[in-house]
């Protein structure tokens, strides 16, 4: 063989060979082979299990011997509530094999290939950071219409349909265009301004119902070295949790609907301008906790539970999430956004509440009736109470909190809903246009404004441009409020 160094006329040298192959190999590492790992597979066998006969105890006609596969997102809510509900399914259908329970945090990477291959599981809790885009799934006919479940009798009271036992807005959220219900949102989230009653008591203050009171309270806190507000600066898309209902309160529901519908100039509405200017004032007057733009949600929540800031825009999961750092005497509460002034269209108490934790049954599931039946069981009063007890969150089942001892935060949520009455708004940007909501409006728009790097006027212009671009983009599916 050729020697290692002198190889002028000896054909292929070892070093060259190694060098070239190493270079080629290295190049491949970072590029795109990971994408093709989930390339379209063969469409698997489409054999669905035979539908069973419907009866009073089995209104959906579940095949009593068919297996059921349930993929659950193992996140903030854990999985115990699902395991408990599966036991009930097994008890109802003793002849079927035990429910196959698959907990994961990697919803998309686990399930994408199975959707592509046409062999998805029967029920999915499509949640978490790796949530599959519901708009795309619906657009490509990958989900089952859950209307039969909505029209089935409820477990607790067969004279009632399941749809009549849900909290307001939950069913509508599962629709996109027209009547079919694609998604069953199982949790019920209250968004708003979160605070500690103890911290306010220490300042001799009540929750400020007007913006002037809010500013006065922030000033008072500032003198004591406490910031008024903080927010997850790394994920500024938390800001809308209190900002959107604030906008809706100032200008009425139509303003939010126009924004959701991506109508031209929707962001140029005076209500948006007023709300953004009010928030910008928090920054301008130094009421936002220093360093907030560089904090994660956990970091900002920790500063908040340490008492360094009074208010944080958040959702009801924060109670569970911040529990490790929350002092015993914190008395966590949630309230609706303060009124801007007397000309607000909606009364104080207007709040954002909506379904969370989306469950779907794939259109190509082998045992879709089983998937729906499992959901019907979960929507019973007993399962709902079990969920609320375990994860400190309301469920989509309307009521079901009687007889439970609620924490101050949950009680505040229930009270806020009661006070809001019909004035519950439900902006849809975050489930219709994820990129627009999180990255463009959240990070590039509101995040930059609250860090003091853009004025409200500049921010509105920027966001309007993003919204217009999204409206024109043919590669995303567009939705409208009915």
């Amino acid at each position: 063989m050729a020697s290692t160094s002198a190889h002028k006329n000896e054909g292929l040298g070892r070093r060259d060979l190694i060098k070239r192959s190493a270079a080629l190999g290295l190049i491949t590492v970072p590029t795109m082979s990971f994408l093709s790992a989930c390339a379209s597979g063969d469409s698997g066998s489409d054999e669905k299990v035979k539908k069973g006969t419907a009866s009073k105890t089995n209104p959906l006609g579940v095949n009593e011997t068919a297996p059921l596969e349930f993929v659950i997102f193992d996140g903030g809510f854990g999985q115990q509530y699902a395991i408990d509900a599966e036991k009930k399914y097994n008890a109802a259908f003793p002849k079927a094999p035990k429910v196959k329970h698959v907990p994961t945090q990697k919803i998309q990477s686990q399930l994408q290939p199975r959707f592509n291959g046409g062999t998805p599981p029967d029920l999915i809790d499509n949640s978490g950071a790796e949530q599959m885009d519901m708009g795309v799934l619906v657009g490509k006919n990958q989900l089952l219409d859950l209307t039969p479940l909505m029209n089935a009798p409820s477990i607790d009271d067969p004279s009632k349909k399941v749809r009549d036992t849900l909290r307001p807005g939950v069913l509508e959220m599962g629709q996109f265009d027209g009547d079919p219900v694609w998604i069953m949102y199982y949790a019920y989230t209250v968004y708003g301004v979160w605070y500690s009653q103890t911290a306010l008591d220490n300042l001799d203050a009540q929750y400020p119902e007007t913006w002037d009171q809010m500013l006065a309270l922030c000033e008072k806190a500032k003198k004591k070295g406490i910031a008024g507000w903080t927010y997850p600066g790394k994920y500024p898309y938390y800001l809308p949790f209190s900002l959107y209902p604030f906008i809706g309160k100032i200008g009425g529901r139509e303003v939010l609907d126009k924004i959701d519908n991506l109508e031209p100039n929707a962001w140029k509405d005076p209500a948006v301008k007023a709300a953004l200017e009010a928030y910008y004032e928090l920054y301008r007057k130094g009421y936002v906790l220093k360093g907030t733009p560089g904090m994660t949600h956990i970091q900002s929540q920790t500063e908040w539970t340490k008492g360094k800031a009074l208010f944080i825009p958040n959702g009801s999961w924060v109670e569970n999430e911040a529990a490790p750092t929350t002092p015993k005497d914190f008395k966590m509460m949630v309230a609706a956004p303060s009124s801007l002034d007397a000309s607000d269209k909606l009364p104080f108490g207007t709040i954002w509440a909506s379904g969370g934790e989306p469950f779907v049954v794939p259109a190509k599931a082998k045992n879709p009736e089983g998937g729906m039946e499992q959901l019907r069981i979960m929507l019973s009063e007993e399962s709902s109470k079990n969920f609320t007890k375990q994860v400190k969150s309301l469920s989509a089942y309307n009521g079901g909190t009687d007889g439970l001892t609620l924490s101050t935060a949950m009680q505040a949520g229930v009270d806020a809903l009661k006070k809001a009455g019909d004035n519950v708004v439900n902006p849809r940007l975050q489930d219709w246009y994820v990129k627009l909501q999180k990255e463009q409006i959240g990070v590039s728009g509101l995040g930059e404004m609250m860090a003091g790097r853009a004025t409200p006027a500049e921010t509105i212009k920027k966001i309007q441009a993003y919204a217009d671009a999204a409206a024109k983009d043919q590669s995303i599916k567009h939705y409208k409020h009915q």
Partner: protein
Amino acid sequence: MQHGKYRFIVGFLAAPLALYAVFVIWPFVQSIYYSFTDWTGLSPEFKMVGFDNYSRMLKDDIFWKSLQHSVLLVLLLPLVTLGLALFFAFMLNVGGRRRKNAAVSGVRGSAFYKIAYFFPQVLSIVIVSLLFQFAFNPSDGMLNSTFKAIGLESIQPDWLGDPKLALYCVMAVLVWSTVGFFVVLFSAGMASIPRDFYEAALLDGASRFTTFFRITLPLLWDTVQSGWVYMGILALGVEAFTSVQVMTVGPGGPDYSTTVLPLYVYQTAFRDGQAGYATTIGVGLLIVTMAFAAIVMRLGRRERLEF
């Protein structure tokens, strides 16, 4: 001797080449094919759209921003990392003063430094990113606390929350986590340079500076070049993706100030449900990577020194 040489080589290479073709080349071909479709990644249905994805990519501001950041990383990171690594390796191996009987040795405590430098290699880049996320925390992170402790209270940057600093914060972390590997790599290279060269230089009264540029660097050139390519690949691929994804605002922000190509591929495919377009950006990344490797290989070509 030469008879049947190629048959011999091919015989040995057939199996690995087949594996390579199936698991590396074929995905490439597939990806390029998908880049001409409107595949969502969530359903097996898609149709061909011709060059739509490509014309969209050329008009996409975020693509250009990501490309800009990736190119900046690929230029700056190897320069800083390899420069530091060369300096450290030189000090550790030949930079010390004459001690005991050895004419050429490293600085005092070089064995310890070697371990200290290499230590970050043991940690996964995700862990490193998470750790630095805490260090960069503006309110009670290590950096700002240090500033406070030494009386520089007025300097309290937002670090990752500041679009002007964020990308450099990411770069600093990448340098910190990779420099140790190259220190070890270059140390190994330097160990194979005959000691007599250094001793001769020493006798001639050469300074450390001269010794480095006249002896060490030229004899180490092959290693440096491989290191350069390797570092560039890291800067274009996995490492950059991970640290940006874990550490930065958004991630990719604030206001797109840290987004890089692999992150954009990931977000487009797995958040926006546009796998077809994502493969198009992937092809863009492929072209950038190939161009980088080709340029480095060509520019770095030198006459090989034998010893």
